[in-house]
């Protein structure tokens, strides 16, 4: 009996002693104190050391784009770390080009704050804010696409450049145990600063799209941050060729509003591709834009209409429709939005038709 008691006592006290040592060590050894992060040589942030830069910036309401939430798998959260970030880690190298490594570009989620840091982030990211909005309308566009209309609550207005995207926070739900952010292009009129429209296509087993389609209801409150992205109209008068299918239409809707608002009359042809007739949507809306914008032409293309489906428009892949147009496009600019496969194929065709890479702008949905 005594042995049993004694052994329990000894093992527990040794464990407790070791645990105490670890707690003390955690308190003193792993305590990095307060560190200062200097951003772009002007803004100074005081943060508690020990965590990573991305988490610290998010706590300070500074949002760096990140799709994976700081696990080092998306490679979006790049910043220039000019001082105090330590060596590049093996977890970062797959996401950095040799030139970026030379320029001290790092993944902010992988930099642990051990001392004072100096980092540089694009000025416009400082304008990124977190928003709370109410989902006031959900409309079916096709069998696997929906249009979501959000009214902003706090802050009440947003300034974005048409073509930019926001990151929607997908909360925990049955089947998803952690919060994630997913990027969606804004499809609304930039003049109406109190609302945001998103066009979302259901991704089979997608974490966020499943939530949007099966759980999000009209009247629910959502959170998102943004705006992000460099995809936008160039400051030239060059005629444009747009190519996008499915939810890739979102940024172009916003661009069309901008062209209407600012009376931009650049000749524009929009090739909108879909697999079947049932994948087509917003055809009436595009016809309406054609009426309002004298130089805008909308070309819907269906790859393979089912028998019995009524379709008198273009057939084949969008890239084939583009080739069929067979025009000299050397003075044009190309704008693309959609899956990486479609974009790479379209860039190839545009190159053949005389549009060089530096005049092709795209937003890959990955």
């Amino acid at each position, binding site marked *: 009996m005594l*042995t049993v008691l*004694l*052994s329990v006592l*000894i*093992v527990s006290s*040794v*464990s407790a002693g*070791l*645990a105490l*040592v*670890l707690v003390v*060590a*955690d308190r003193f*050894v*792993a305590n*990095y104190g307060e560190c200062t992060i200097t951003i772009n040589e002007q803004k100074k942030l005081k943060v508690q050391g020990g965590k990573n830069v991305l988490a610290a910036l998010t706590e300070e309401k500074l949002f760096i784009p990140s799709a994976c939430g700081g696990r080092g798998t998306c490679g979006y959260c790049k910043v220039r770390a000019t001082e105090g970030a*330590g*060596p590049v*880690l*093996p977890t970062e190298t797959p996401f950095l080009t040799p030139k970026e490594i030379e320029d001290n570009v790092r993944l902010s989620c992988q930099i642990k704050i*051990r001392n004072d840091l100096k980092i540089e982030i694009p000025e416009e990211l400082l304008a990124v804010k977190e928003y709370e909005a109410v989902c006031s309308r959900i409309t079916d566009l096709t069998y696997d696409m929906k249009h979501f209309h959000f009214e902003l609550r706090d802050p009440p207005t947003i300034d974005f450049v048409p073509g930019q995207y926001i990151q929607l926070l997908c909360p925990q739900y049955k089947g998803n145990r952690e919060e994630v952010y997913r990027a969606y292009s804004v499809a609304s009129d930039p003049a109406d600063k109190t609302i945001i429209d998103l066009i979302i296509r259901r991704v089979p087993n997608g974490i966020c799209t499943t939530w949007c389609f099966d759980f999000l209801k009209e009247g629910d409150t959502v959170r998102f941050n943004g705006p992000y992205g460099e995809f936008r109209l160039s400051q030239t008068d060059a005629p444009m060729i747009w190519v996008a299918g499915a939810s890739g239409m979102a940024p172009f809707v916003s661009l069309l509003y901008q062209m209407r608002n600012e009376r931009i009359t650049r000749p524009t042809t929009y090739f909108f591709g879909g697999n079947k007739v049932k994948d087509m949507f917003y055809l009436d809306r595009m016809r309406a834009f054609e009426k309002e914008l004298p130089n805008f032409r909308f070309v819907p293309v269906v790859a393979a209409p089912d028998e019995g489906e009524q379709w008198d428009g273009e057939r084949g892949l969008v890239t084939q429709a583009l080739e069929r147009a067979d025009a000299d496009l050397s003075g044009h600019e190309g704008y693309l939005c959609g899956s990486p496969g479609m974009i790479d194929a379209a860039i190839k065709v545009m190159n053949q038709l005389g549009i060089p890479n530096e005049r092709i702008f795209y937003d890959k949905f990955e």
Partner: protein
Amino acid sequence: MSINAQLWTAAVTCFAAIFTNNILLMYFLGMCPFTSVSREVKTAFGLGVAVVFVMTCTAILNWVAYRYILVPLNLEFFRFIMFIIIIAAFVQFVEMVIDRYSPKLYYALGIFLPLITVNCAILGASLFMIIRDYTFIVTVGYGLGSGLGWLLAIMSMAGIRQRLAHARIPRGLDGPGITLIIAGLMALAFIGFTGVLG
């Protein structure tokens, strides 16, 4: 035993632990990281060095805990639990300290430290030193030697496997299969050291 005699015994034990009684090749302890982290010499070296360090330090800590806590209380049979707790806490502690004071070392060794907590060679070394009734100084030699022996074995294996990368290996043997066969051949070769020190 005088100090001098103990030092000599420690040196001999250390040598024996590296060559004639190699903990990996003679007792086949620590096989799991041995087969999985032996693809490259560089990572194998990192893991090996971490093992040398942890094995030496935990052998010493466990010797002290055994001699001054368990033996006086007649609780020797508790050594398994005790040793495991001490090893786990020590590895945690070391990880924290390295992370704080030597980020460079942390990036090189840090990822291996949690792996080592559950490496049975570490626990094996601590248990052997008790079974064989080593004194403190001999224990230091034994812990160091066992670690170095493990380092030597995994480095040789990694060297061989790097060369094997371009060899044509029968499909059924690729990966762990050929690794175990090589380990067996290496063990045979190490038996050749038997009796070196008389």
